[in-house]
């Protein structure tokens, strides 16, 4: 029995070693330009995903994950170059100017038909951003109370389908181009609340929205289709298996959780919506 166990262990070790060695070469010839990994992020890239809009620093959750993935794939930090794209540029037909694109893309089956996603690197709660005056007016962290609010969301995010499926608001939500416009509408009192991923909502409530507060969160365990963030790639990109291997490796070793703890630690302590 002991023999079997130890030989199994040995087998595992060799396979892990082979795996690790294979990883260095996995990406060879599969990147846009040989020897560099081109990663795209948003313009601007937002806190806490990228600190100070400077992904090169490796500060911020996504920037840190990007460098960790690059490292696993055998690219050193100075072999990583950053480009900026909008959502639309990322899904346009034709050649892409990035190896993978990282800006909180939610993985959905519909999108999967047009582009490729890596394995998820983060599973997000959705959080309700509102203002103190709305809370004072009697809004509570219950679905009943939430249904009566006037909702807003960024049109290009998966907040909208989640809003429709989970909250089912009484009146149609208003939709906006980006976070800044949603915040303007909240501050103008045109909407009561907006749905964001939790880290973004935390940042907005603390820094951007005057009197902003988080009413509560929908934890991923509660949702049938939790919001999973993946790296976006051109469909059929051969690099995908290398990226997936790197992400698997990072999550199994606990490195991903450590990065999450470092940059997204505040996420606990927001009440759960019942």
């Amino acid at each position, binding site marked *: 029995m002991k023999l079997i166990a130890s030989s199994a262990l040995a087998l595992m070790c060799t396979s892990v070693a082979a795996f690790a060695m294979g990883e260095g070469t996995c990406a060879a010839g599969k990147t846009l330009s040989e020897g560099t990994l081109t990663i795209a992020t948003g313009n601007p890239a937002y806190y806490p995903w990228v600190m100070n809009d400077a992904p090169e620093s490796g500060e911020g959750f996504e920037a840190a994950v990007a460098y960790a993935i690059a490292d696993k794939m055998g690219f050193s930090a100075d072999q990583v170059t950053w480009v900026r794209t909008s959502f639309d540029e990322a899904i346009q*037909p*034709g050649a892409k100017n990035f190896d993978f694109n990282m800006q909180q893309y939610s993985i959905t089956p519909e999108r999967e*038909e047009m582009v490729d996603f890596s394995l998820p690197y983060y599973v997000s709660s959705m959080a309700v951003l509102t203002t103190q005056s709305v809370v004072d007016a009697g809004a509570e962290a219950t679905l009943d109370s939430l249904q009566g609010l006037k909702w807003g969301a960024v049109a290009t995010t998966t907040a909208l389908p989640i809003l429709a499926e989970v909250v089912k608001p009484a009146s149609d939500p208003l*939709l906006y181009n980006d976070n800044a*416009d949603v915040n303007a509408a909240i501050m*103008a009192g*045109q909407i009561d609340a907006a749905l964001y991923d939790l880290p973004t909502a935390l940042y907005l409530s603390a820094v951007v929205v005057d009197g902003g507060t988080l009413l509560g969160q929908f934890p991923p365990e509660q949702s049938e289709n939790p919001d999973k963030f993946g790296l976006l790639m051109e469909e059929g990109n051969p690099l995908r298996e290398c990226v997936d291997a790197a992400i698997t490796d990072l999550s199994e070793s606990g490195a991903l959780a450590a990065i999450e703890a470092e940059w997204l630690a505040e996420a606990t302590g927001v009440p759960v919506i019942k």
Partner: protein
Amino acid sequence: MTTSKVGNGAVSSRAKAPTRRELYEANVRRRATRIALISTISVGLAIFFLVPLAPGWEAVQRSFFNGRVFAATFPGLVEAFLLNVMIFAWSAPLIAVTGLAIALCRDTRAPALFPLRLFGMAYTDVFRGLPVVLVIYIIGFGVPGLGLPRPWNSPYIWGTLALVLVYSAYVAEVIRSGIDSIHHSQRSAAASLGLSDRDIMRFVVLPQAIRNVVPANMNLFIALQKDVALLSFIGPVEIFRQAGVYKSLYANFTPYVGAALIFLALTIPATRYADYLMNKQNRART
């Protein structure tokens, strides 16, 4: 007398048999039609067969002309388009009235009313000079931000106001050009008949001026129909925004093509109608 005889003779001979010149001209016309037809068909065929040969055609087709996505999103787009029609329907009359009022401000002639003229001038200068989107943002987010209670802070109200402000400036200028096109001898004639300034404007100048600028205003209203989509910047989910939502849901641009088709279904008939009015007016003038 002699000329009419010759004329009659020509008519009777034409009824019998076409002249050689007429035969020749008919031949030239047929040849021109034939060449136009062949050229159009070959250009059409070239586009139809050559474009799909481009290496990226399949990807473009999948992103822009995706039948499955089109079928899934088109009904939702049509529904959202009703909001565009509604916003257009209540904006257009407001724009017409405001535009007329501003045009009349600019046409006041009494010295005491000079401030009114100045206002009209400043209004048209400012609102024709600003991008529509900026006005929509400033009015749509700015005014409600002053602390108005619901429902008075609705984006529909303030967005509509923004459209009215911008478009009435254009309409005012068009109407003013119509007013200027009425020769001032008509005013003098009306004044000599004893009409007051007000009545001259109401019964003599405006009826002709407005009629003259109907085609130009039709163009503005076609443009307005498209600019209603800009209200989506401040919240309302009209067709353009709905298409954007579908775009990000399916990671596919086909919903925009669907939206474009719906827009065309309305704007092309409107443009044809404007052309028809313009031609009718030109015929009436000659």
